[in-house]
Each structure stands twice: as C-alpha cells, then as structure tokens.
C-alpha cells in the first residue's frame, strides 16, 4: 500500500509538472509582443514593463519557466490588467462556488442512485428494475441545457419561485438559505447527469457481485437481505462507481460552465468564459492551471479511495 501511494504521488508530481509547462506555453504561444497581447490594446508602457519583469522575459525560456513557477508556488498568478485584480483573488472567489455546486450535486446524485441501484439489482429485470432502468435511460438522452430549461420552468411557474435574474446567486457567507435556493437548480441539473451514470454503473456491478459465491456464503450465515446488500455486496461493487465519480466530478469542474452560464452562477466556468471574452489571458491561464490540477487531484483522490475500498487492487 505504501509503495503504491508513493508511486502514485510521484506520478502526480509528473503530471502536475506537465500541466504547468502546458499552461506556461499557453501564454508564450500567443503571437506578437507578448506583453502587449496579454494586456490588450491600450497597454501602458509601465504595465508592460511590470509584466515583462513578472514573466522574466529578458531571460532564457527555461529560467522564465522557473521564475513563473516560483511565483505560482508563492501564490502569485499575476494581476489581471483588465480588472486590476490579482488572478488568485478572482479564482479564490469563484472556486468555492464550483466546489459547493459539485458537493451538493454529488450528494444528491449518490443519495438517489445508490438506493435505486440496490433496489434494481435485487431483482434484475423485475418490474422495479425495468422502471428505474427505463427512467434513467431516458434521462441519459436529455442534454443538460434542456434539463435546466425544464427545471427553471418547473420551479418558476409551477412552484411560483422567481428565478434567474442576472444576480440570482447568493453568497454562502451571508444568507445560507438564500444560497441553497440559488444553488438548487445548478446542483439538481448536474445531479441528473451524474445520477444516471452512477445508477447504471452500480446496478450492473451489484448484479454481477450478487452472483458471487461469497454472497451465497453470506446468505448461509443467516444474514438479512439488507445486511447482505449493504455489508457484502455494496463495497465490492463500488469500484467502478468511484471510478465513474472521479471522472465525472473532474468533468464537472472542467465543464460545468454550460450550467453556470445559463444560470448566472459566477463559478470558474462562468469566469473563464468571461475572461475569454475580454481577452484576460492571465486569468484564462490561471483558471486553466487551477482546473487542470484540480482534475488531476480529484482523480488521484478517487484512485486512493478505490484502493481503500478494494484492497485487492493495490496488491495486484
């Protein structure tokens, strides 16, 4: 186990290094006078000089990389010349929103998918299983923006709760009920997509696990059906589920912008689109870097969890 963890950490460092090099060149591949491009039209010579120094553009390229990475390691991603705000501050404001949506949506998705899969797997092809499977399959084929529109219609018309003004997002710091209300729609939307995947993956693994001899053995001990499902079948069936969750959550971090954009939630995705639209390259670079490292970390985390859940994996 320890050797496995060390190996994975070395791999992680390697991947993060590659990502950092990629993000570094993202800026350096921009055509023309890099300081002028980064700062956009109307850049003042002082600002250009500041950026020139920040990027260390007078030095050889590998040194420039080390200067840059050194700055990053000190928490300095530069200051946007568009908004005059440090990139770290902007990201620091947006990231918690992503994390909260992600957290809420995943809790919701698991809370629905797991009991449904358990119920389905008990009698595969039974009435309940057919109903659940057909329902989830239908949801799988509906794109998320349609889900959003349907949800918005439902919430605002049926429930009479007005929604999605331009400033519908409420910060968690102030009013947490208002915050939850503003997070409900994006969280539910993302949960729908995740839930379908989780349900299907867990259902099929549970069905396979329930065929195993050790399940018959558990039955022969006189354990209740409930206990057999939760204590014996669930854990060995959850490896693919966790794998799917890792990929999916990474995907939400990287691709949650559709939902954020449609619902005016100022998370990273929303901020990224805005940054692209305003040619705020330093901010784009910062977000790309944070999101990429985030995706890698999430995958690493789930890999680790999978190993705890199923000790067979690191042994092999």
């Amino acid at each position, binding site marked *: 186990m320890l050797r496995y963890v060390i190996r994975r950490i070395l791999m992680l460092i390697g991947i993060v290094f590659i990502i950092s090099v990629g993000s570094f060149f993202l800026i350096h591949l921009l055509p023309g006078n890099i300081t002028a491009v980064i700062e956009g039209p109307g850049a003042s010579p002082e600002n250009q000089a500041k950026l020139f120094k920040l990027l260390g553009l007078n030095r050889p390229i590998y040194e420039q990389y080390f200067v840059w990475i050194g700055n990053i390691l000190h928490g300095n991603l530069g200051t946007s010349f568009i908004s005059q705000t440090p990139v770290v501050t902007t990201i620091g404001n947006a990231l918690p929103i992503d994390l909260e949506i992600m957290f809420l949506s995943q809790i919701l998705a698991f809370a629905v998918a797991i009991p449904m899969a358990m119920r389905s797997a008990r009698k595969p092809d039974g009435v309940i299983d057919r109903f659940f499977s057909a329902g989830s399959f239908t949801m799988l084929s509906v794109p998320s923006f349609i889900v959003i529109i349907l949800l918005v219609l439902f919430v605002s018309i049926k429930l009479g709760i007005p929604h999605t003004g331009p400033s519908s997002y409420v910060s968690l710091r102030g009013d947490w009920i208002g915050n939850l209300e503003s997070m409900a729609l994006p969280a539910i939307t993302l949960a729908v997509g995740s839930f379908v995947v989780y349900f299907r993956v867990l259902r099929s693994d549970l069905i396979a696990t329930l065929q*195993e*001899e*050790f399940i*018959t*053995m*558990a*039955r*022969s*001990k*006189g*354990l*209740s*059906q409930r*206990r057999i499902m939760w*204590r*014996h079948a669930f*854990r*060995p069936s959850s490896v693919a589920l966790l794998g799917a969750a890792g990929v999916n959550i990474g995907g939400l971090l990287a691709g949650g912008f559709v939902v954020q954009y449609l619902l005016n939630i100022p998370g990273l995705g929303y901020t990224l689109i805005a940054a692209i639209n305003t040619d705020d390259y330093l901010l784009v670079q910062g977000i790309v870097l944070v999101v990429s490292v985030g995706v890698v970390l999430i995958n690493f985390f789930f890999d680790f969890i999978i190993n705890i*859940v*199923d*000790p*067979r994996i690191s*042994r092999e």
Partner: protein
Amino acid sequence: MTDVSEKLLIVEDLSTTFATAGGPLPAVANISFDLGRNETIGIVGESGSGKTVLSRTIMGLQPRTNVSVTGSVLLDGNEMVGASEDFKRRLWGTEVAMVFQDPMTSLNPVMRIGKQIDEALRVRLGMSKQDAKARAIELLELVGIPSPVQRYKAYPGQLSGGMRQRVVIAIALACSPKLLMADEPTTGLDVTIQAQILNLLDELKERLHMSVVLVTHDLGVVATRTSRIVVMYAGRIVEIGATRDVFANHRMPYTRALLESSPKVSNASHTRLITIPGRPPNLLKLTQGCSFAPRCSYATDKCHQERPELQAADQPGHSFACWNPLPTTRGDSAT
C-alpha cells in the same frame, strides 16, 4: 435402525430442476436418505453429478429464481422445502451451516476475515462486539490458524488457499450448527493440506457433536471418515449403503468405476487417476434408460430402455440401481 425422530436429517424424494434456456434441467432427482445425529455420511460422484446442488437444496440455499424443488427435507423437524427465506434464515448458521467448495471465491475479498466471523456471532447470537471478537479469535485458533490475533485483521487475499478454507470452516462453525454440509472442502488444496483439513473436520465433529454431510468426488476421502456413502450419478442416487459395503460389495458398475478412478486408500502416494471413460450425460437430454448406459461395459438393451430403480442388496441399508449388478463376491477394492 433407530427411531425416525432420532434422525437429524430426513431427505425424501427430493428433486431440484432448473429452468434453463435449453429447457428444464433436472440437476437432482428423487433423492432419499437420512442422517443420524453425530453421523457422517459421504456423497460421492463425478463433477456435475449434482452434489453441490443437492447439498444446497438440503439447506434451502438454492438460487431464488428459475428453480423448482419438490419432495421433502426435514432438518431437525423443520421442513426446508417451500419454506420462506425468513424461516430458513433462522436455521442457517445455527442448525445447518455449509463449508463451501472453493475457498478462493467463498470469502468476501474486501472484508477482513475477523469481521466475516464476527458478523455471524453478532447478528445470529446477539453477542457484543468484544465477545464476538474474542470468540472469533478462539474459532481461528480452533481451526488451526497460527497467530489468530493478527490474522483476525487479514483480508482473504493475504491468506493461502488452505488458510482460507480454515476460515470458511471457522465461519461455518461459528454458531455451533447441528449439521455441517461440507461441499468438497478440500478440492484444489494440496494433498497434505487436504488431509489436515479433513482430520480437522473429523476432530471438530467429535468435539462439537455435529453431523456431517461430506461431499467429494474422491471415494478415498470418505473411506475412513463416513459411516455411510451415497453414490450419485446424473442427479440420482445409484448406490447407497454402509461405507464398508459400498467399498467391498458394490453392485453398480459406476461405483466400481469411481473406485478405480480414486487414488487407492492404501496407497496414497500413488495418485495416478484412472478417469472413467466417456463423459457424464447432458442433463437436458436424458434418455428413459439408465443414465450410465452410454459409458457402461455391462449395458444391455434393457439398460437403454428402462431406468433401474434402487433395489435392496444383501446387506441392510445397502441398495443399488442396476439391471446387471456386479456379483456380490467382489471384495478387492476396499484395500
């Protein structure tokens, strides 16, 4: 013969049929036998003869779908055939427990072995966490697992096949069952371990006053450990009797073929197997005749047309199903 109520297990006309894509598959057909308290009976037959299905059906542990069971299994007075899962659950572990055939697949790979023993004690006997743990360690010791305190925390993957089978036995014994169904408890283990496990079962049976159904494809295994033997072929009993009679005076050609294919008891190091020529019949395409006929060198026309029923042999409790039984004077196979 003792009084019927003395019997721990009475199996009568038991049949198990699976509904398969190819039609009904009679894996076990018209089996009757009984088992006294503290007795060990052997069930032998080739692979596919229905031993596992029979032992699971006796326990009521068959899969819950696509299977139909008829006949009767009285286990300590409880009818198992047609009983609800809830009813059987109350008997599993405490009345009857099973040692599964394959220790590589019968333990939960992601649960510590200690927990797998504990669980039965806590759920079924209502023991406290500490008591269950102490008892589990005792059980590990009882089945001969070295340093049980450390092993308590091991995952099945960290143990050898022989050790895992001991764990499986420990689990089966956890709630002190009256009847232990041991389904080929030593298949796949090497010869010395096999003997250790079988001796362990013998010893535990005496110590804990259990009855044992010992399932095997190897007559050598049951020779010295059972009082009676059931020989199965294609889901049916083809010969049954006291161990001594089945070895010395078997009348059914299949029993003889089995004996010849088994490593000789007196000559354990000589393990060359003479396999029985031909293959077991396809249970989906059984004929009306003797199911052994295609492989039997004594087969006559009658054998192909009509199935022989069990008939009494000379010794009490000994019967066989054959139209052309072997002469009774044979006695060379036992030693």
